[in-house]
């Protein structure tokens, strides 16, 4: 199982802050995104954009980063703190 989190405007657009995904792992972030889009076709416009950043186990990664069972994956917009 993979725990998937969404933050900020992405969370609001998807109307979802967290869900669990069962996937043949290891896969990569892009595959996980595609899986989410297959389940929720209206998410494509929000997820399939280079404006969405990804983290695996609380570290930022790129879309080729691999994901395995037990990982925590997060998707969010560019950060605006400070």
């Amino acid at each position, binding site marked *: 199982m993979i725990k998937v989190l969404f933050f900020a405007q992405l969370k609001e657009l998807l109307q979802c802050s967290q869900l669990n995904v069962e996937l043949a792992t290891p896969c990569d972030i892009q595959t996980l995104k595609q899986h989410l889009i297959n389940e929720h076709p209206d998410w494509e416009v929000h997820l399939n954009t280079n404006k969405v950043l990804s983290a695996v186990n609380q570290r*930022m990664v790129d879309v080729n980063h691999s994901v395995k069972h037990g990982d925590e994956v997060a998707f*969010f*917009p560019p*950060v*605006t703190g400070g």
Partner: protein
Amino acid sequence: MTQIHINVQTSDFDIAQEYASLRENNTQDGAIVFFSGLVREMNQGHGVTGLFLEHYPGMTEKSLQDIAQQASERWPLTHIRIIHRVGQLQVSDQIVFVATSSSHREAAFASCHFIMDYLKNKAPFWKKETREQGDEWVDALEKDQIALDKWQPKA
């Protein structure tokens, strides 16, 4: 060995107390640089009456620790203190505090600036502004990304 303190909190902070902590039993440092970030009334051309700060608990602390660690490897620093607030803030409220101390001012200036530039790009905070027309998420600015260029090794 740099002493690193990181705090992510909803409550306000007292810069005098932070400054006192940096000076306590400290006879080796000649230079302390501080940055403090405040909620502005005008941002990117529109009026703001409040600011909500969302973050990613867990990753926030890790990313700030990681940025402080990089600074401590790059400059000879005695102390690094980072405080970032989350939750609902008002105009003029303190948002973020970064302080570095060193024997020499160049290290203190550069490291404090470096930490702020990285925090702006790498730490998972998101600002939602309360505007007259309603609440809006703040857009990330390209200039904040460009600000990182100065810290890249020269070719």
